[in-house]
Every structure is written in structure tokens, then in C-alpha cells.
């Protein structure tokens, strides 16, 4: 193929002055929540979220946002629409006093000390018999 026949670039060379990218008018995006595990055995922690047209690209974007510097060993990518939200104050923050459901009413220190002493006595008793 000669130079004359070869199709030319759609636009002349001018680096950054060329066209910016854009999504088409019909394109829809969704929010995906991303959870990450920092190292094996750690719990999955919420890392943040990404916007993407579908779960495939969301997975790629999660990889770039939350592990391109090798900071994760596992990611979970969840469409926000699939997350069940519970924030009803009647269910989570009921108004009546709840202190009796907390363990603060029990003083454990003395009981713990007695139990330790008992365990020690039993062990010593076995040792001498």
C-alpha cells in the first residue's frame, strides 16, 4: 500500500487538544460498593465505591481504585441496589433505657480473682498428692 492510498488519521497530531472521552447519551451507570481484604485472614472492610456501567467494568475499576498499589488480596464488588439498607431508628436506636442489656452491671474483677485462686489451689493440690 502506498502512502497516498493509506487512510489517514481522523485528526491531525496535536496531543492533548484532541477529543475528550464521553459516555453516549444512552449509557447508564450504577454505583458498586467495594470491600477489601488487606491480607489473608483479615476481615473484609468497606473500602469505598465506584461508578461503572456494569459489574465487569466495576470489577476492573475496583481493582484500580483499591489494589493498583498491591494493597489488597481480595475484593468484593456489590451493586449498591443489592445492599439491604436498615437505618430505621425504631429498630436500631429505640428510646427506652437499654443499660440492662449491657454487661457493665456485672463486676467481674473479684469473681475472676477468686476463680484464678481456686484454679491455682487445685493445681497445687494435684502437684503434692
Amino acid at each position, binding site marked *: *500500500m502506498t502512502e497516498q492510498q*493509506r487512510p489517514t488519521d481522523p485528526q491531525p497530531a496535536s*496531543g492533548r487538544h484532541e477529543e475528550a*472521552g464521553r459516555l453516549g447519551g444512552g449509557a447508564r451507570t450504577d454505583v458498586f460498593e467495594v470491600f477489601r481484604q488487606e491480607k489473608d485472614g483479615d476481615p473484609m472492610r468497606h473500602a469505598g465505591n465506584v461508578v461503572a456501567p456494569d459489574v465487569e467494568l466495576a470489577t476492573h475499576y475496583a481493582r484500580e481504585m483499591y489494589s493498583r498499589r498491591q494493597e489488597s488480596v481480595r475484593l468484593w464488588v456489590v451493586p449498591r441496589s443489592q445492599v439491604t439498607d436498615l437505618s430505621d431508628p425504631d429498630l436500631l436506636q429505640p428510646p427506652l433505657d437499654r443499660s440492662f442489656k449491657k454487661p457493665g452491671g456485672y463486676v467481674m474483677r473479684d469473681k475472676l480473682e477468686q476463680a484464678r485462686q481456686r484454679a491455682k489451689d487445685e493445681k497445687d493440690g494435684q502437684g503434692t498428692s
Partner: protein
Amino acid sequence: MTGPARRPTRQLLAPDVPDFDRRQLPPNVRDALAGLLLAMADDEFVIGFWDSEWTGIAPLLEEDVAFSSLAQDEIGHARAWYEMLAVLAGETADRLAFGREPAQYRHARLLDHPRTDWAFSIARRWLYDTADSVRLGALARSAFEPLAEVVAKVRREERYHLMHVDVWLRRLAAHAGEPRQRLERALEVLAPDALTVFTPLPGEWLLVESGVMSETNEQLAERWRAEVGGLLEELGLPALPADRPPAGGRNGHADSESFSWLWGEFTAVHRLEEGVTW
């Protein structure tokens, strides 16, 4: 060289290139290998710079980060090849990357095209990444172990690059109207230059004979055409031309207006102060 003495560039936590003695290769094989490394380094370096132009203006913010990260990966691969070449040629990676005139670069002509629009950058990256993948697959079996070792690392990163560009190629092809039209136009412009990635190298027979390359570029070009041909057919896109790799596909970059512009950009700091480091 005038000016202040060179300081080494920032050291990597773990060097990507293993120590090796260049004398383990006969001088003529060494020269041919230098040609192969220069071609690969310049390919990765130039596509890395073109695609970094998308930073800030990709179709969506997340893609901005993703595409820029891919571009950075390519610069990282170029660095590994330049460092290996620096050991062979008694040079420094920085001087190899920034200290040459446009005519001395040996990247494939496919990479002389400017980034243009999104479909164009995706089409080019798909053509290049699939070709690079075939090339790396063959070099993973290289008898020159330091090369095979670095190739193995690079291939693990390229796996994700292929996944990402495949998603976009299919997406553009699947949307009739503007996206598909732009993709077809880009492939029409780029296809004649796609085979330049497999341009026969000077002294290539020495590399094949010594096992540094397990196959010739012409064989690699055939394998690549068969691999990408399947996907083009599946997507109803035009087949690639049946040419052989062109002889001058890695020369003549000084005549490319777009590459001359890019060269001016990426050497700007180096030309401002010889030996500058960060």
C-alpha cells in the same frame, strides 16, 4: 558530558531485572538481543506516553484512573527493558529512554499514530496488547534466562490489560451508531500498521538460532493474526490485511509529525537539564 555528575535514579524496592553477566552471550547475539530489547522498550514507552494523555479526560472518572494506571504499567515495563538493555550496552536506562533523537527510536509504526478519540485509543491498544502478548508468550520460552524471568513478571500484568481492552472493544463493537462507526474507522486506519509490531529485527536469525527467541517474527505474526482473526469475525469487524510484517516498520519516526510532537513532550524535562533526576 558537562554539568553536574549523574546521580542514580530512585532505586526500586526490589529490582525487576536480575543480575546477569553480558559476557555469557557471544558479541553478535548480544547485539541482536540489544535490538530486540530496544524494540520492546520503545514500544512500551511510546504507548505508555500516548495513553497517559487520557488522564483527566477519559469517558468516566474511574476509567481515567484505570487507563492511566495501564499506561503507567507500560512505562514500568519499558523501564525493565531499558535497564536490561543498559547492562548489555554499558548505558543508563535514562539516557536510553530520553537521550535519543526521534529517528533513533525503534518502536513499531503502529505507535506513531496520535491518541485521537477513545475508540481509536482502544483499537490501537487492542492491536498492540494482543500482539505484545503473542511476542511475550514466545519469549517466555527464551533460552536466555534473565529475559524469560522478566517476561514472566510482565505477562502477569499484561493479563489484566488484555481483559480490560477486550471489554472495551466488545462494548464499542456492540453499540451500533457512533461507537461502532468510530471503532471501524480506527481499525481501518490502524490495521495496515498493526503488523509492524512483528517487523523482522536485524540479526534475528542469530536470536532464533541461539534460542533467545523461540520463533521468528514472521511466525509470531501468523499466530497473532489467527488469534485476533477469531474475535474480529465474532464481532463482525473487517479482517486484518494478509500482508507480511514490513521491513521498515520500526524506522523513520522522524518523519512522523505526531511522534515528533510526543517526543518533544516526553523529553522536555531531560532537554531542560542534562542528567536531571527526581
